[in-house]
């Protein structure tokens, strides 16, 4: 589903942020991407959704050669991905329902199908009764659920989550994490960058740990529980 081969990323200022990163994520996996801030987790995710281009190496996502995509091919890739951020990135002047509908409208979905699809994902994240609420009227956990619903509405094969619980209290974190697990149980690949090790330790999901731009531990290859993270 996702395959990185010898990926190197250098920023224009010369900083080397990814050093020869290679791994393979298969269908149905839930993968934690861990490491301190600045370890390269976010950059790695950005390579996956073609926000940035690797300096060297190959990035394959769901059959797309992402490292070689032309600008006008990127939207096709992104419609197969769901992307969630720490800061939710909702539009403040639109209701929860409208935020989700927006994602459908701008990708050219048929207008008559939109309300039903919005209701379906809102139900899936447990927020159907809050469809008319504006982001400011929702708690952090609820806002993140709306963002996840928006990410799900195009039925993505892969969900990329960059510190999705970073702004949430413990209870909301548990709720959002449970939601991500349910989504994964439905067959969607989930890649979640986080530095919340408590969360990581709760499960036996595969963990890829990064430090200073390099993969220093991958539970799929090293013996389970061998890293200092555990």
């Amino acid at each position, binding site marked *: 589903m996702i395959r990185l081969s010898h990926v190197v990323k250098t*920023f*224009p200022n010369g900083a080397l942020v990814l050093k020869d990163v290679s791994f393979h994520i298969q269908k149905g996996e839930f993968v934690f991407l861990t490491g301190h801030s600045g370890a390269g987790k976010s950059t790695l995710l950005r390579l996956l*959704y*073609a*926000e*940035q*281009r690797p300096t060297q190496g190959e990035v394959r996502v769901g059959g797309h050669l992402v490292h070689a995509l032309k*600008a*006008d091919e*990127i*939207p*096709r*890739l*992104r*419609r197969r*991905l769901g*992307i969630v951020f720490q800061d939710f*990135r909702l*539009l403040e002047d639109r209701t929860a329902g409208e935020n989700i509908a*927006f*994602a459908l*409208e*701008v*990708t*050219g979905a048929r*207008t008559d199908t939109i309300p039903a699809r919005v209701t379906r994902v809102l139900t899936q994240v447990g927020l159907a009764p809050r469809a008319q609420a504006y982001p400011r009227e929702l708690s952090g956990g609820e806002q993140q659920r709306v963002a996840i619903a*928006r990410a799900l509405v*195009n039925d993505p094969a892969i969900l990329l989550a960059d510190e999705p619980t970073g702004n949430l209290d413990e209870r909301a974190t548990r709720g959002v994490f449970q939601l991500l697990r349910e989504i994964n149980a439905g067959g969607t690949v989930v890649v979640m960058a986080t530095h919340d090790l408590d969360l990581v330790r709760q499960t036996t999901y595969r963990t890829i740990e990064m430090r200073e731009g390099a993969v220093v531990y991958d539970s799929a290859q090293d013996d389970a529980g061998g890293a200092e993270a555990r």
Partner: protein
Amino acid sequence: MRLLFREALLSFRRAPLLSALSVTTIAFSLFTVGLFGLVALNLREALRGIEERVEIVAFVLRGTPPETITVASEDVASFPEVLSVAYVTEDDALARARRELVEFRDAYRDLQTNPLPASLEIRLREGFRDAVHAEAVASRLQGFSFVEDVRYGRDWVEQLDDLRNLAGILGLVIGGVFAAVAIVIIGVTIRLTLLQRAREIHIMRLVGATNWFIRGPFLLEGGLKGLMGGVLALLLCYGGYAVFRGNTPALAGLVFFQPIHMLVIIVFGVLLGLLGSLISVGRHLRMIGGRTDRRIV
């Protein structure tokens, strides 16, 4: 399609002041161009009136038989440049002199013989009323054996040429400068809208909206503002035109734009709007674009 218009029109509602400002600046840019256009148009009208009076006079040798002149004037009339040929006999010339040169009326009355020669007065067709063509016709007239002398206001015709060329060049330069200013202003206002909506655009890109989809509303917005600016500019021009014509009797003959000119101004406004927004959106999309290393939003 509905979404496209909704988004484009929404920007007017979201930022009414900014939108009004950009429409006004486009209007003023086009207004200035329009005013200059009106001046040029009226100058051209005025010149046309003067030009119609550009004529070449060929003085005829005394004693030339009228038949020869009649035949020759038919010849001259068939020159491609020539609009009309009038034969002014010696008597006609004297009569005209008595009529027009009042101060010398007494002198002319006492004359024993008519000192004035007969002449052919030649008017040129539109498009040939310039120094080059006048000279060509004049030199051909010199070739007739009965023609004593040919006169045409050479300097005067040349000055007319220069004036017209200057008006044209000035119009192009000033029009070009204002067009550039208008493009920049539209670009800036669209850019402000872009920054206002950066978050939305960012999300559109994340969920996989195409660049053309993102551009669409902005191009439409630019085009609409150009259209409104163009119409407003025409209204302002008409206002200025009406004031000038109304207050100055000497300018009562001023003309306003033909429908085709108005269409050109409006189309020009729309093009300016489109160009300004295209440049601005293109730069913005590249800047936050998927293939740069800059951070977004």
